[in-house]
């Protein structure tokens, strides 16, 4: 199996060349990537959803394009429009317990 350099789909049957079409993002390698970079193709795919491309190869159950990019380490602020603005994640009301031989000791900060 091969990985798509555009969307991170990890089950390409053939290498991404010689007119192989990725069922996930629809890139036709050797044609579309001859004049357009993989990053630009990725940005276009993300801007459309990202959605599963193929109507022949069924979409895997619980498939999510963002998760596919994350697992392939292709998730970048350069490609994801909503990551370009500042995003701040706060984990609130955290409890920090420790477990000692099955006894739960917890403390609330």
């Amino acid at each position, binding site marked *: 199996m091969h990985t798509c350099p555009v969307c991170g789909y990890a089950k390409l049957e053939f290498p991404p060349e010689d007119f192989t079409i990725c069922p996930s993002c629809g890139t036709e390698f050797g044609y579309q990537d001859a004049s357009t970079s993989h990053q630009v193709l990725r940005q276009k795919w993300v801007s459309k959803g990202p959605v599963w491309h193929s109507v022949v190869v069924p979409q895997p159950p619980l498939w999510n394009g963002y998760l596919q990019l994350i697992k392939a380490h292709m998730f970048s602020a350069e490609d994801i429009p909503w990551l370009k603005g500042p995003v701040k*994640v*706060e*984990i609130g*009301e955290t409890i920090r317990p420790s477990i000692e031989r099955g006894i739960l000791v917890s403390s609330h900060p």
Partner: protein
Amino acid sequence: MNLLLATPCNLVANDQELGPSLIGVFHDMTIKIHPDIEIPGNALIPKEWAIFSKWMLSSEETRRDYVLVSEVYWPDGTLLHQTKSKSSSPATTALIFIIKHQAFPFGQDGRVRIRLWMENEDKTLVHESIEIFISVRVQKNVVLG
């Protein structure tokens, strides 16, 4: 079989002698974004987190194989992720599962629901499902420095 503890956390540190320690147990997450940013409903961010659970077995229940099924749902009720983790015939009466995730769903305001239940290998229910919730708040119109 009894469930002793089930919780999401940032990280589980495992010590050979003391056992696992949970780092950053959480049930509430706030994502602050710039007012001009629209987040799609299927958005995930790269964030490592884990679902820790510890189960107590009777002596008759040891040395059997069990399957922990875990499901993570979006706030709108859509299933995001399902994992099946198999134990390998535990010899002790304590059974621990650590389900690691690489991404966290934050495209929707509301409660991310986690369901856990235990099955035998033949899918017979061993422990009925339990639910854990993580509140996710997406705050817009926040000026970030």
